[in-house]
């Protein structure tokens, strides 16, 4: 949007390979693209041409039916009264009954139409016009514009004075719309669905929309060409500019119409002269190039540097992995090696251990010699108790034996 307005060539309608002039692009055609807005407005606007439909108010209820209640071995649904005819006693009223009314009957007082804010509608039209100036969007919508010289396609005013359809068709073909027109003709097919029986038998694709300023015969010349539609620049319809809610219609402007766009819509500063209180939509972001913004020096200079993520990896068990044990417990491999050496014969560590062992055993022997000799050792003191008892028992036995011998004698 900060760039200068591009210049659009005007093509001679009789000889489209030559350009009769140039014109700066109106600001409307540089409006921000808002597909969501166009879709929304189109959805609501499209509802406004609907005709009401409903079932008859009395449908299904035009009987004097009453329930027979219980006791007559029939369901309790209301039944048609009387006799003498099949209808008598048949169920009525319910949606389940044959000839009964429908569930939730459709009504004419359904809210068929939608109101859309005027500004919203105008913004949508501006948006749709802008989209029709962009070849990728027009191609995406399905139009065949490979032979078209330029978008937006502006043609000299002479085309407005065409009266014959043949001439109009020629002019369009010369402008490069031949493929487009052929596409429309080829696409004519019978509509799927009931519409075909309701006077909407055929469907076909849409072709170019010709926007004119003065109708000197152009509408009547173009109206029988399949797919081509005409619109006066003062009365642009979103339903034509963005059919089905998708913007990017292939639009052909006449010189007068193209010039008038600037008169109608004006610029962002001036507002729209012909639309009271209306200014063209502004973009939400003045500079929408995010990559450029992010990588600009203004932004990058205030950022801290990008950091590597902490990765903890899979937990390993230090008791199993010697590497990890060394990492966590520095010097452990060394100490372990020394420890292992001490069980290998011939190494100084082994000798060291053996020396200590010897000293320990010596110590122990010395201790035993001192403390565990004589009568005060554990075993001796233990046995002393037994010996004492044993001696007492022996003495007792001897005494008894002596008594017995005495008695015998």
């Amino acid at each position: 949007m900060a760039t200068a307005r591009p210049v659009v060539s005007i093509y001679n309608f009789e000889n489209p390979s030559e350009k009769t002039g140039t014109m700066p692009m109106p600001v409307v055609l540089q409006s921000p693209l808002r597909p969501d807005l166009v879709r929304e407005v189109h959805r609501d606007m499209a509802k406004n041409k609907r005709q009401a439909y409903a079932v008859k108010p009395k449908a299904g209820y035009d009987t004097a039916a009453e329930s027979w209640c219980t006791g007559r071995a029939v369901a309790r649904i209301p039944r048609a009264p009387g006799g003498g005819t099949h209808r008598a006693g048949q169920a009525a009223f319910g949606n389940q009954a044959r000839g009964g009314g429908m569930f939730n009957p459709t009504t004419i007082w359904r809210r068929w139409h939608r109101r859309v804010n005027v500004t919203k509608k105008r913004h949508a039209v501006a948006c749709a016009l802008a989209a029709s100036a962009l070849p990728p969007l027009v191609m995406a919508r399905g139009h065949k514009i490979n032979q078209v010289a330029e978008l937006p396609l502006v043609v000299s005013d002479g085309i407005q004075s065409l009266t014959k359809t043949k001439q109009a068709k020629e002019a369009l073909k010369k402008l490069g719309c031949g493929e487009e027109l052929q596409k429309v003709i080829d696409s004519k097919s019978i509509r799927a669905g009931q519409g075909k029986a309701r006077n909407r038998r055929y469907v076909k694709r849409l072709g170019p929309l010709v926007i004119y300023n003065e109708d000197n015969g152009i509408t009547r010349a173009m109206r029988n060409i399949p797919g081509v539609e005409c619109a006066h620049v003062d009365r642009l319809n979103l339903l034509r500019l963005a059919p089905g809610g998708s913007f990017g219609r292939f639009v052909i402007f006449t010189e007068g119409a193209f010039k008038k766009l600037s008169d109608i819509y004006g610029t962002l500063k001036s507002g729209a002269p012909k639309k009271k209180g209306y200014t063209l939509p502004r973009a939400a972001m003045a500079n929408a190039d995010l990559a450029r913004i992010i990588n600009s020096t203004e932004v990058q200079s205030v950022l801290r540097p990008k950091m590597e993520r902490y990765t903890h990896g899979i937990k390993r068990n230090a008791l199993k992995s010697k590497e990890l044990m060394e990492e966590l417990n520095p010097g452990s491999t060394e100490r372990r090696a020394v420890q292992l050496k001490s069980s290998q014969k011939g190494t100084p560590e082994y000798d060291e251990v053996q020396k200590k062992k010897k000293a320990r055993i010596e110590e122990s022997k010395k201790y035993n010699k001192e403390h565990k000799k004589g009568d005060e050792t554990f075993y001796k003191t233990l046995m002393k108790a037994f010996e004492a008892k044993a001696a007492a028992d022996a003495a007792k036995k001897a005494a008894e034996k002596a008594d017995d011998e005495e008695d015998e004698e």
Partner: protein
Amino acid sequence: MAERYAISKVNVPEGAAVPELVKMKMEKEEKLAEEKKQALAAKQKAREEERAKLKERTVAYEKEYADTAAELVKLRREAKLNGNFFVEPEAKLIFVVRIAGIMKMSPKPRKVLQLLRLKQLHNGVFLKVNKPILNMLKLVQPYVTYGYPSLKTVRELIYKRGFGKVSKQRIPLSSNDIISDALGKHGIHGMEDIIHEIYTVGPNFKQVSNFLWPFKLSSPKGGFVNKRHGYCEARGGDWGNREELINELLGRMN
């Protein structure tokens, strides 16, 4: 911090025109790469110093453990020699394991278990032995088993199942840096420091024990005897204080 700069290399084909933004980016990355190199060198130096100190401390700790064990032996022998009784020092450290599941927990024991950070079956924590802790354990006796871990048990638990609480996340203790960053201000810079602090219940026991995420142990290989009953009951059971014999259980659960 500069060690962690993420430097992205831009591959410019030979002789290609370099866009302005790409050129700016390349210059910036060059400067950052230089800073990073210097920071890494400084970090490497600091790391080597730290490791040397840690090595010294570890040797000192091993000597300390051996000395205390030898001292106890000496005292026991002395007592026997003199016909006295040696009163074994009371345990300073206990390891508690939650035995009960989550379902149907009364509110009071449930709260106490939460306070002890035993929120899951077979979770274990190290605790200091003091009056308040003993009283708390009294409240949750039937739902835990606990005892006095040996040095071997402490080492194995911390090396195999040691995770630390780093910004509220459970981070494996795969490097001494993690420990140093979290506990450096208490003078604890490595695994052996943690083990020493825990085993000897040092002045920073609380901080170290809290740094350690509750241990998530496996179910014991060979099973429990009977979780419904107490360890000390005649009919055989598992809950409560099993003193030294916790080491046998932890050997099967670790």
